[in-house]
């Protein structure tokens, strides 16, 4: 469903992605872990076509995502939803208006049908009580759920999550993890989750890949990561200060 072929990206003189290659199967929940600033979000933005690689090729559903025209990219993006770290809700619109926005802008359905779809997604993500609130008036967890609802109204085949549980309390994190697993079960959506919350990674991931120095140094099922022999991965998942990772 998603494939990176020798992707390299240099940002401000630093090689953030270094000849990165991996493949994500259809319906899989693929978790990317790694320290802050190792290029996890950059990887997601390449899948979404928000960044262009300096070298290499990115395939989404068999079609090339990089080096294409805006209209081709927009067509491919119909298959992709992106849940941003901050939620990225339009700040002058209510939660309900935010969720309805993609449908209204593209006039995909008649107004009654749009209202029904928005209601359904707000019910699914327990947002009904916040429908008339502005993004500044709701909690971080609600923002992420509203962002996910805005993604779901378009029925995407792929959902990209940037730190879906960061800044949330454990109960809210569990709810987000449950929603991610539910989506996989009910709609067989391919999901890519970027996180450094290991509990979340184990809870949702079919496979977990550790990004380090612009490359994937290990990609395995959650048990494989939990019992890894790789000293870098072991240090990262245990949060130890001692080990090969240069802490400072």
């Amino acid at each position: 469903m998603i494939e990176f072929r020798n992707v390299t990206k240099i940002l401000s003189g630093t090689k953030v992605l270094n000849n990165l290659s991996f493949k994500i199967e259809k319906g899989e929940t693929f978790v990317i872990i790694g320290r802050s600033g190792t290029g996890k979000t950059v990887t997601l933005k390449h899948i979404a076509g928000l960044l262009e690689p300096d070298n290499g090729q990115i395939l989404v559903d068999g079609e090339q995502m990089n080096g294409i025209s805006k209209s081709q990219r927009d067509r491919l993006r119909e298959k992709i939803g992106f849940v941003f770290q901050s939620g990225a809700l339009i700040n002058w619109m209510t939660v309900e208006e935010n969720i309805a926005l993609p449908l209204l802008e593209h006039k995909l359905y008649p107004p009654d049908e749009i209202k029904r779809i928005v209601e359904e997604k707000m019910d699914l993500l327990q947002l009904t009580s916040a429908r008339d609130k502005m993004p500044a008036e709701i909690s971080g967890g609600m923002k992420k759920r509203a962002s996910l609802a805005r993604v779901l109204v378009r029925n995407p085949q792929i959902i990209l999550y940037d730190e879906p549980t960061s800044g949330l309390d454990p109960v809210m994190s569990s709810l987000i993890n449950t929603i991610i697993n539910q989506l996989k079960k009910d709609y067989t959506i391919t999901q890519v989750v970027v996180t450094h919350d290991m509990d979340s990674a184990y809870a949702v991931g079919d496979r977990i890949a550790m990004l380090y120095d612009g490359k994937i140094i290990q990609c395995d099922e959650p048990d494989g990561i939990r019992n890894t022999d790789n000293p870098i991965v072991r240090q990262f998942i245990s949060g130890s200060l001692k080990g090969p990772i240069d802490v400072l």
Partner: protein
Amino acid sequence: MVEKIKHTVINFISDIGTNTLNIIAMMGYCMLLFLEVVYYSKAAFEKRREILKQMYYAGVKTFIVVSIVALFTGMILALQTGLELKPYQQQALVGNIIIATLTREMAPFVTSIILIAAVGSTMAAEIGTMTVSEEIDALEMMAISPVKFLVMPRVVALAIMLPIATIYTNLLGSIGGGIVAYFQLDVSFDVYYTHVLGSLHFKATYVGLLKAFVFGMMVSTISCANGLRATNGALGVGKATRNSVVSSFLMVLIVGYYITALFYGK
């Protein structure tokens, strides 16, 4: 010591080069953005609510400050010129001078400056905040063009509102001039307005309004462009806002001169 001086000189030249390239890149970006706005202006009717909202922000919300500035601009002009003309008993000509100055240059210029400060800076800060908080990326992910959704309504709104505000500045500026002419220069309202209407030329009016129209499109495009290119969080938004105000101000001066030269030059 020599090495240090050499290093400083090289850095200085390098900074000039980098800044020059950045300015050229930004000018190119503004032009491309403007072309995209022209393309999306076909959706102006569809976006009429957003255009009206932006017109409200640009017009109604700046109404008081535009009124005060317009009134006092007329009063200052009348007083300065009237006091020079009074010894020659020619102070009645103040009406001619006021209306010619306002319609040709002062009204579009002063109104633009107010709208750059009050509206352009808000546009840059608003869109800059959206850029750094990934709202623009979110729009792109929904295949919603930020230019159609955000920039086009702002450009259309300011292109309509700046000429309207300029007409208002002309009107209020001439009233301000009339007040000073009556109370300070002993020129009756009748005489003052006879001179004002005598010098109210069609060409001066439409050239002034054309300037306002061009400034409106230019200021909003520059402000939105700076907002869309904001980086590095709050610091970047501040920088984008400052850049938008400075570059809009400079462009109003430069383009204002060329429009004047085009219509009145040799």
